[in-house]
């Protein structure tokens, strides 16, 4: 763990730089061979042939930007959930938000219901958003109704998770092979349908949430002293927990509905940040957001390199590459205790 505040800020700035470098690297990676120089020329001097310009401006930059905003959103959401629920296993996925989005997407694919005047792609996203908000609403309502403890909160989330997972299985059971394929691809998670409006929506949601939680950074740090001590500092924990959960559920729902289920970032990135930065949420929150963006950018690069000429589903890459790294950190870290 870095002890001095200057060191923590410096490390966060380093992550920001890495993020920019990987952003450029991600744009430079792909089937059409283009060097960094060429890309810079295309972007800044309007050079390059028509096709190359379309590839860079229309595909690669949106995908890379999407990786940043989604990675940052999911990681921030995970970090917040782990703090307010005082549980290292909490993430948008483990509270059922993602699986509800999956169910929403699946029923749109299979039963084609949605708004007739919008594209199917957008209908899927809207329905995924709707269902993930419903799932969050259920968790929120049940938790606030009974003033749930953090453990009960997570168990309610798990109940919602399994409900939507079985509903999803039911839909899959009744769907045709073509639809099943569509569902599977959606569940894999993909950045390839990135467009600037979608990025703008996710980014604005991220920006608002980020500003809000940064204002409450000290309270979040105080919660990590333990529930009894946080209450003894005059924090209304139950109310605050629900308030942050509301932010998290909107943040994740918006990110997940456009890209599908990209697992694990919400768990792995905050843990690594916590390990290096400690519990000062003023720095921990931006740090884990940057780290989430970095991990998703890296995954995006790997997913393009792994199968030449095709894009391997990014959700698989994050999980497969993330898990060994994650286990390594947990198992071989003896100096600082990760969680108390």
């Amino acid at each position, binding site marked *: 763990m870095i002890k001095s505040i200057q060191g923590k800020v410096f490390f966060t700035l380093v992550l920001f730089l890495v993020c920019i470098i990987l952003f450029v690297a991600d744009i430079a990676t792909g089937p059409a061979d283009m060097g960094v120089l060429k890309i810079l020329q295309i972007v800044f001097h309007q050079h390059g042939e028509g096709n190359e310009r379309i590839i860079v401006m229309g595909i690669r930059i949106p995908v890379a930007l999407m990786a940043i905003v989604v990675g940052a959103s999911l990681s921030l959401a995970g970090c917040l959930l782990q703090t307010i629920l005082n549980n290292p296993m909490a993430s948008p996925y483990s509270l059922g938000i993602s699986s509800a989005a999956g169910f929403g997407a699946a029923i749109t694919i299979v039963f084609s219901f949605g708004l007739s005047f919008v594209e199917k792609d957008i209908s899927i996203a809207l329905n995924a958003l709707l269902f993930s908000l419903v799932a969050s609403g259920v968790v929120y309502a049940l938790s606030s109704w009974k003033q749930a403890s953090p453990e009960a909160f997570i168990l309610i989330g798990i109940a919602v998770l399994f409900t939507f997972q079985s509903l999803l299985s039911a839909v899959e059971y009744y769907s045709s092979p073509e639809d099943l394929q569509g569902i599977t691809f959606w569940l894999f998670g993909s950045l390839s349908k990135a467009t600037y409006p979608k990025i703008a929506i996710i980014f604005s949601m991220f920006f608002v949430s980020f500003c809000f939680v940064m204002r409450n950074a000290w309270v979040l740090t105080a919660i*990590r*002293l333990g529930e009894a001590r946080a209450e003894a500092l*005059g924090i209304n924990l139950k109310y605050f927990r629900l308030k942050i959960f509301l932010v998290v559920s909107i943040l994740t729902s918006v990110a997940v509905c456009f890209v599908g289920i990209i697992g694990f970032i919400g768990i792995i990135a905050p843990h690594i940040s916590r390990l290096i930065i*400690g*519990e000062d949420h003023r720095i921990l929150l931006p740090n884990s957001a940057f780290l989430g963006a970095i991990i998703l950018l890296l995954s995006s690069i790997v997913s393009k390199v792994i199968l030449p000429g095709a894009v391997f589903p990014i959700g698989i890459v994050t999980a497969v590459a993330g898990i060994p790294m994650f286990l390594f950190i947990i198992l071989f870290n003896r100096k600082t205790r990760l969680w108390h």
Partner: protein
Amino acid sequence: MALKIQSLCLGYGRKQVLENLDVIFQKGITCLLGRNGAGKSSLLKAIFGLVNVQGEIFHNGKIIDRAFIRDEISYIPQSAQAVSNISVFDVVLLGDVFSLRFMVAEEIKEKAKSILSALGIRHLMHHPVSALSGGEKQIVFLAQALIKNPKVLLLDEPASSLDIYNQIKVMKMLRQLKDLIVIVAAHDLNLSLKFSDEIVLLDNCNVVYQGAPECFDNALIEKIYQVKSHSICENNVRGFLYTDIVDESHD
């Protein structure tokens, strides 16, 4: 300066913990004694507004409200468990969490440093609080409680998990605090009698004794705790030695 509690009732479900309790806490250290479940912790929580109660609590004749609790009362809950690797300095700052801005004001920082110096733990400032011993942790939380300059300080068994050296150290630190109503829920009679200005004894949902520590005697211990004891007095220091329980069928 006094904290007056008037006809306070508190129950969890059907179980009544405090019933029509009237008590006045004066400036100085008051030790709150009583058996397990007598309502010591509950009374502290009630004063701090953590549990719903009936009845009124006044400070200097005025009913205390949320704002008063937030600004003027500090509460240190029982046991030092669940402390993470937040630095000692940050833990102390968190004592005034609602005044903290993103960039912490210099005056709050200076205040935290001066409290740490006064309590003799300034050298631990940058250590994570999880790396400290039980005694040091308790002093850190005392520092945390003092940073907002409270008028009332509530401590729930501050010495219970400490060795005798640290027990006396913590109690001596409390003694040094001036112009403060300090209410300590405690189990150790001898420690309480030595360091308190007044004793309040809870039993059967109410106060059964309030008075100077000197008046505390074997008969009271036997009546409330069902324990036989000898009192020892040497060089004006009084203490009790517990020998046996009165009647096991009572327990």
